[in-house]
C-alpha cells in the first residue's frame, strides 16, 4: 500500500464522482477504503480463531434536487460499480425533495497532520497479535485467575475522500486494541482493555493484570441491596457512558426527539465538574482524524463545558436545519463524535476511593438500554467488579445489582473526577466511539435487583 495506492483510491473515487455527475447529481462525496484487518479471539486461555480481512470498498453520498442517497458497495468491478451507481441515482427521482438541504462544503481545505496514527507493522501482524494475546493471558493468570477470554484486533490501511466541493484527500491510519476478561470463579470477573495506534504503544500487560486483579478481588462477595449509592465509575464503564453522553449531542437525535438534550442547548445539564470534549486532533489519538465525511477539517468541539451544553454536533444538513454551522462531525446522515475526552480533575484514582465513606465502585457497565431516549431513563448491567467501599476501603464485591437511573441525573450528580485519563475502547461501547477517561465519582446513583 504505497503511494501508488493513493492514486488508485483517487482514480476510483473520481470515476464515481463523474458517473454520478453524468446522471445529474449536484453534490457527490466518495470514500474509498483499502485496509487489512486482523483479529485473534481467545477463550479458556487458548486461541479460538485468527481472522484476516482484506477490504477494498466504497461509500458514496449523492445530493440531487434536494434529495440524498447513500450507497455502499464492495463490488468494485468497473461495469457493476457503474451500473449500481447509475441505478441508485435513477431511483432518486422518486424521492420527495427534503425541506432542508445544503450543498457539500466548498473546499479545498487545509488539514492538520495528526502525528503517530499509522503503524505499518499492523499490515502483517499475525504473529504479533498472538504474542500480545499471550502477554495479556499470562498477566491475568499470574494474578491467580482460572481462565480468561478476549480479543486482539487490528486494522491498517488508507482512505481517500473526493467530493464535488473540491476535496481530494487521502490518509493512512491504523488501530489495535485488546480486550480481556478474567474469571477467578464462575461470577468473579475482571475486565481490562488497551488500545493504540501502534503495536508498541499497546499495553497488554496492564490490561491483563487489571482484569486478573479485579477478578480475584471479586471472589469475596455479598448480595447487593437495591437503593441509591455514591459511585465511582471505572474506565470500562465510562467507555460506554461517555460514548452515550457524546452521541446524545448529535443534532439528528435532537431532531428525532431521541436525546435528553432536546431543548437544553446552553443550559446546565451536568455538574460543573463535567467538561466533555470531542477532540479528533489529538496526536496519536485512537479516534483522531483530520477531516469529516463531508471534507471539512475536523476541530476540537467542547460539547459540555463546566456542566453547560455548549453545542450539538452537526453535519451540513443538520446545521442547515438548526441555522447553525457544521461542527465537522459528518456522518452523511448522522453527525457523530470522533474522540471523546472527559476533562480530568485533580485527584488521584486512589484518593477518590479513600474519600468515599460508603458507596460502590462500578468497573464496567454493559447492555445499557433506554426506557425513553428523550427523558434519558435507562438501566445497564454492571459487571467485572462491583465493589463496596466503606470508610475508604474496598471491602468486597456486591452482586445482583443493576444500574438504573437517568442520564441527566448521573451527569448532574458528578462530584469528583480523577486526573489520570486513559484511552478506552471495548466491545460493549455500542456507540463505537473511543474515549479518553479518568475515573468519575457520582452521588446518589440508583440500583435495582431481582429479588426472586
Amino acid at each position, binding site marked *: 500500500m504505497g503511494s501508488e495506492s493513493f492514486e488508485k483510491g483517487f482514480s476510483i473515487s473520481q470515476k464515481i464522482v463523474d458517473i454520478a455527475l453524468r446522471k445529474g447529481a449536484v453534490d457527490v462525496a466518495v470514500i474509498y477504503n483499502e485496509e487489512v484487518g486482523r483479529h485473534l479471539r481467545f*477463550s479458556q486461555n487458548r486461541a479460538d480463531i485468527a481472522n*484476516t480481512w482484506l477490504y477494498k470498498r466504497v461509500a458514496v453520498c449523492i445530493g440531487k434536487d434536494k434529495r440524498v442517497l447513500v450507497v455502499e458497495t464492495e463490488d468494485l468491478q468497473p461495469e457493476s460499480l457503474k451500473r*449500481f451507481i447509475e441505478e441508485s441515482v435513477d431511483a432518486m427521482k422518486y424521492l420527495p425533495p427534503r425541506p432542508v438541504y445544503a450543498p457539500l462544503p466548498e473546499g479545498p481545505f487545509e488539514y492538520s497532520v495528526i502525528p503517530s496514527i499509522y503503524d505499518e507493522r499492523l499490515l502483517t501482524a499475525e504473529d504479533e497479535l498472538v504474542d500480545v494475546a499471550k502477554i495479556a493471558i499470562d498477566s491475568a493468570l499470574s494474578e491467580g485467575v482460572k481462565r480468561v477470554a478476549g480479543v486482539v484486533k487490528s486494522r491498517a490501511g488508507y482512505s481517500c475522500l473526493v467530493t464535488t466541493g473540491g476535496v481530494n484527500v487521502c490518509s493512512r491510519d491504523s488501530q489495535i486494541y485488546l480486550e480481556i476478561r478474567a474469571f477467578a470463579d464462575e461470577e468473579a470477573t475482571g475486565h481490562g482493555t488497551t488500545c493504540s495506534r501502534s503495536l508498541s504503544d499497546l499495553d497488554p500487560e496492564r490490561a491483563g493484570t487489571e482484569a486478573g486483579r479485579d477478578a480475584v478481588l471479586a471472589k469475596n462477595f455479598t448480595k447487593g441491596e437495591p437503593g441509591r449509592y455514591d459511585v465511582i465509575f471505572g474506565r470500562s464503564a465510562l467507555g460506554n457512558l461517555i460514548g452515550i453522553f457524546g452521541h446524545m449531542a448529535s443534532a439528528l437525535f435532537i431532531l428525532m426527539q431521541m436525546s435528553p438534550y432536546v431543548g437544553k442547548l446552553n443550559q446546565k445539564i451536568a455538574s460543573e465538574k463535567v467538561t466533555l470534549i470531542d477532540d479528533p486532533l489529538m496526536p496519536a489519538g485512537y479516534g483522531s482524524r483530520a477531516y469529516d465525511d463531508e471534507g471539512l477539517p475536523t476541530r476540537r468541539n467542547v460539547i459540555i463545558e463546566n456542566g453547560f451544553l455548549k453545542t450539538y454536533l452537526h453535519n451540513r444538513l443538520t446545521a442547515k436545519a438548526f441555522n447553525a454551522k457544521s461542527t465537522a462531525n459528518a456522518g452523511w446522515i448522522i453527525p457523530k463524535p470522533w474522540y471523546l475526552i472527559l476533562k480530568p480533575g485533580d485527584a488521584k484514582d486512589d484518593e477518590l476511593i479513600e474519600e468515599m465513606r460508603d458507596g460502590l465502585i462500578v468497573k464496567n457497565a454493559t447492555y445499557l438500554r433506554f426506557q*425513553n431516549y428523550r427523558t434519558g431513563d435507562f438501566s445497564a448491567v454492571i459487571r467485572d467488579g462491583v465493589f463496596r467501599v466503606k470508610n475508604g476501603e474496598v471491602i468486597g464485591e456486591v452482586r445482583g445489582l443493576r444500574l438504573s437511573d437517568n442520564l441527566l441525573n448521573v451527569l448532574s450528580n458528578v462530584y469528583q473526577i480523577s486526573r489520570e485519563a486513559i484511552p478506552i475502547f471495548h466491545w460493549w461501547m455500542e456507540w463505537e466511539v473511543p474515549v479518553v477517561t479518568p475515573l468519575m465519582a457520582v452521588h446518589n446513583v440508583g440500583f435495582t435487583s*431481582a429479588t426472586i
Partner: protein
Amino acid sequence: MIPGELKDLVEYAVRRALGMNVDYAEARYQINRSTSLFMINGNIEALSNVSVAGISIRVIVNGSMGFASTNDPKNVDKAVESAIKGAKACLKISKELRLSEESFGEASYTSKVLKRPEDISPEEKIELLSSVDELAKEKGITSRNLSLRNSREQVYYVNSEGSRVEGDVTRVSGNATLTLVMGAESTQEFVEKGGSGGWELVEGWNFLEEVSRIADVMKECLEKGISPPRGKMDLVLGPYVVGLMMHESTGHPYEADRILGREAAQAGESFVKPDMLGTRIGSEVVTVVDDPTIEGSSGFYLYDMEGVKARRRILMKNGIINEFLHNRETAAIFGVKSNAAARASSYDREPIIRMANTFMLPGDYSQDELIEGIKEGVFIARFTEWNIDDRRYNQRYVGSEAYLIKDGKLDKMVKRPILEITTPAFYSSIDAVGKDLKFTPGLCGKSDPGQAVPVWFGGPSVRLRGVRLGGI
C-alpha cells in the same frame, strides 16, 4: 443465484487450501444487498443502497482455526494463504479443536417470494411510510421515525467434506419509533414488522392499524396511567414480552459456545452448564423451541453456514433443559451432531452459533382466560427498556403498555411497571400458557466482530404466579 464464475472461485479456494495441507477447508461466497428508506416526521431523510459481497475461507491446521475474507476476486489466493497463516500463527496457543462428523451433500433452498421487493417502485414504498406517518401525526404523535428495508442474501458454500449448498433468502422489514410529548412528560414506543419473502408480506402487515392502536395506547398511558403496584403478585405477560424473553433467557443461555466460554469477553457466558441437560428449570407447561425452517420467518434457512441441514431444536421440553444450540465445533466437544445453528451475517464473518426463530409453544388458554384467573395483578402487553446479565440469569423488562387486573378483569393503565426476575424464577412461576402465539422480528447481535442476524421472537401470553414487581 450466485454467478457460475464466483461458484468456481469458491471451489477453487477449497482446492487451493487442501493443496496447502490443511486438515479441513470451507469457502463461501456471500452477497448481502439491501435498500432502505428513512423517513423523519414525514420527510424522506435518505435512500440507502448497500451491496456487501465477497468470499471467505476457513481452515483447520493441526487443530488451529484460521479465517480470511476478501471482496476482490483477484485476492483469493492471498485470502487462502492468510487463513492458513493465521491458523499456524495460533498453533502455540491453539485449542486443538475438531469438528463433528456430519453427512453432507448438495442442496439448494430459497425463500418464497411472490412479489420481488426490488420491483416495487420507491413511490409505493414512500406512500406506505407517508400513510403511517400521517396517521401517527393525526393521532398526536410528536415525532415519527420510520424505516422500510428489503434485503437479499445469496450464498454458495462448499467444504472439503462434500457439502455444496446454495441459499437465496429475501427479507423485508419495517420499523417505527414513535415519541409522544405531553407537557413535561413523554413516552416512546417501537413497532417492528418483518419476515422472509417478498412485498406480499408488507401488504399483509397491518402496519397502519398497529401504529394507530399503539398511538392511542401512548396517549392513554400519559393521560390516565397510574403508578404501578409493587410487591408480590400475579402477572400476565403478552406475546410481545414473552417473545423477547424466549430469545434472551432460553435462546442465548442454550448457545453451546456461550456455555463453553467462547463469548465470555463480550456478550458473556451462561448460567446453564453442560451437566444441566435433563434438569428441570421451569414448570411443566413450558416448552421452548428454536426453528429456522419456518417459511416466511425472519430467521429462515434450511442449511446452516457449515452445510448442515436445519431442523427444529427443542431447547426446553415441559420445563426441562433438553437441547443446546450447536455448530460443528461445539457438537464435537459435547459428543453430539450439530443441529445447524451456525450462521454468518456476511461474507467477512466466521459462522458462529445463532438462534433463528425462538418461541414458546402455545397452550390452551385464551388471553381473557389467563386474566380471569387473577384476582389482583398486572397485565404487561408491551415493554420498552430491557436487559439481562451476561450469564442470562437476572433480567429486567419495563412495561410500556400495562394494565391493572382486578377481579379477573383489566382495569386502569399503569405506567412503567418493572419486572426484574431470575430466569429459573420466571419459568417456574408460569402456571398457564395462552394459545395466542405471535412473532416479532428483530436483529440479534453477538460476537466480536459484531454480527447482527435477523430472527423472530415468539410467544403466547403466559400467566405468572407470585412474582415481584419492583424498582428502586
